[in-house]
């Protein structure tokens, strides 16, 4: 049984004009101690998936269909109270994009971590919780004394470490990390990711790493799911996605990031803009931007199909992957006429 399993999750946002289908039939699974990378551009629905898991959707957001199973139990069925007491933080915690804004500015970081511990473990005394916070700080390479500092007294990287301490405070089994390093410079970014990895191995925590940065996922993740237009268009183990992707979008995404091992490389972006998810109707959502789109791509929504060893692709032309990969490597392919 997987630790966390999403099955055909549909999360929509109610608008005056209709429903925005932000996550439309997302299926994912996460094993204990696994790191799953959720990749995609802004608006692809990756944050919506994370927010659905911990149920922090805005007022107009709604899980309209599908299930989210945590240890086999569908947590979309839980009452708010139940979710708050049993799941939130205790089982599933999160690391936000900007740690600096993730802490309440008027309390010390230590106070906030102590509060989180004592909310879920009522038998722990203040002093004990404080001791544990100090230990966490120590484990994460922060000076113990800094538990008494306010968030604004931390640097960006330090704050992110403190945020990780908060996320690990009650030893959750899953961490949702929403672009945890985008606000940091590359060197710090690398160290933070390293720290996360270390802690994860030590505690056996699973993680969903949400990012738009291919280089981050390739280093950190065991499996990768690529999202486009509210759907998971391709998922497989990290190596397969990086080396032998089949979906044209993944191919394009790969081109848009520099490969530091190559001598020189022209960065090629995918033309066009993300799709409008307001009741999009039938057809592949990537078709308007896809250089390989055929007639049926416009008419028929491709369904996820497994292509050997857990490699799931949602594309009508996935069988021709060899040819697509070759074509996709040529910058001309992605150039539009105008």
């Amino acid at each position, binding site marked *: 049984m997987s630790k966390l399993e999403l099955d055909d999750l549909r999360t929509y946002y109610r608008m005056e004009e209709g429903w925005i289908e932000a996550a439309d039939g997302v299926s994912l699974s996460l094993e204990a101690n696994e790191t799953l990378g959720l990749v995609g551009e802004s608006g692809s629905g990756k944050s919506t998936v994370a927010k659905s898991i*911990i149920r*922090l959707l805005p*007022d107009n957001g709604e899980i309209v269909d599908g299930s989210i199973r945590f240890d086999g139990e569908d947590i979309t069925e839980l009452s708010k109270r139940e979710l*708050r*007491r049993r*799941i*939130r*933080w*205790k089982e599933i*915690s*999160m690391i*936000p*994009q*900007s740690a600096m*804004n*993730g*802490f*309440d*500015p*008027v309390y*010390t970081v230590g106070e906030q971590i102590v*509060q*989180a511990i004592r*909310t*879920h473990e009522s038998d722990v005394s203040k002093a004990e919780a404080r001791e544990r916070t100090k230990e966490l700080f120590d484990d994460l390479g922060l000076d113990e004394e800094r538990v008494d500092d*306010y968030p*604004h007294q931390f640097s960006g990287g330090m704050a992110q470490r403190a945020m990780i301490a*908060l996320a690990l405070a009650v030893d959750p089994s899953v961490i949702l990390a929403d672009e945890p390093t985008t606000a940091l410079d590359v060197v710090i970014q690398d160290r933070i990711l390293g720290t996360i990895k270390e802690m994860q191995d030590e505690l056996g925590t699973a993680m969903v790493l949400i990012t738009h940065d291919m280089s981050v996922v390739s280093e950190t993740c065991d499996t990768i799911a690529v999202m486009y237009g509210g759907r998971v268009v391709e998922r497989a183990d990290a190596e397969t996605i990086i080396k032998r992707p089949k979906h044209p979008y993944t191919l394009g995404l790969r081109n848009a990031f520099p490969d530091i091992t190559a001598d020189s490389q022209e960065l090629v972006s995918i033309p066009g803009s993300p799709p409008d998810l307001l009741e999009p109707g039938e057809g592949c959502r990537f078709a308007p931007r896809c250089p390989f789109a055929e007639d049926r791509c416009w008419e028929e929504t491709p369904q996820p199909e497994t292509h050997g060893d857990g490699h799931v692709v949602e594309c009508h032309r996935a069988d021709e992957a060899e040819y697509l990969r070759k074509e996709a490597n040529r910058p001309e392919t992605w150039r539009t006429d105008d």
Partner: protein
Amino acid sequence: MGLREYVVRRIFQLVITYWAFITLLFVLFRAAPGDPTSMFVMDGMDEESRQEIIADLGLDQPLYLQYVDYMGQLLSGSFGVSFRYREPVWDVLVIKFWNTIFLMGAAVICAYVIGVLAGALLGWWRGKRAERVGIVAGLMARSSPEFWTSIIVLSVFAFWLGWLPSGGMRSIGAEMAPSFSARYLSTDFVYHLVLPVMAATIYYMATPLLLMRNTMLDVLKADFIEIKKAEGLSELTILYKHAARNSILPVVTMAAIVTGTAMGGSLVIETVFNWPGMGREMVEAINYNDYPMAMGAFFLMGSVVIIMNFVADLLYVYLDPRVEYK
């Protein structure tokens, strides 16, 4: 810079503000139209005795000497002698001042406690019907003139239900207690205090209420609120310990200003409820050209505002750890 230096600087600023304020008072009253001798002039008084009175009051001196005199008096804690009562201003004013402080102080405290708590709730209830009802109620309270609110409050609680007295500060025949505490802690006093405080609270509550709601809306969008929700904290903890606590800063700044308006605006409430306070005394002093008395009243009211600002500045240090001491 340390906390101590910050406080010392604020105190220094307080002194400068005070000096500017009392100088302005001096200039204002010298520039005001009207004849200070009118209080003393009787029919058929000749020019000579009029000059005598002016000399007596020190008004024949050049301005700078008057200014030095005036500053000297203030520094020694004297406001001079009332033209009208022929008694030291301070003796008359101090009683009225406390009457007003108890009335408006209670009202501002009630208004702030209710306004802040309810405003936080309104922000939390964003988009719900309860929020709209609250905003409409707040706007109505804010736009109704004080005398009108007072009349409504009076007609309901004093005339219709008959629960509370319609005016005055003490029941007729009640003896004025000699000691300060006995005077203001008696049930009779509190009994008379309820209605005017209620009317003023309704009026002054709206500012913190609406301001609190507005800042709450901003704070609720902050990332940390989402994290606190994800942490599994209860809604009440997030609402009051985190969201409201972060929204309170502008409301505190506003408190100094609202207290000032409340002191100045006490006149209307005092008049409707026949409350022997400073607002009424001030207007009467001006009507009678009783300059020392009016200046004394202005001085006390201004002092309340200046001191409240000072307190707000100090409170900020406690409320927001990000405040730099400069």
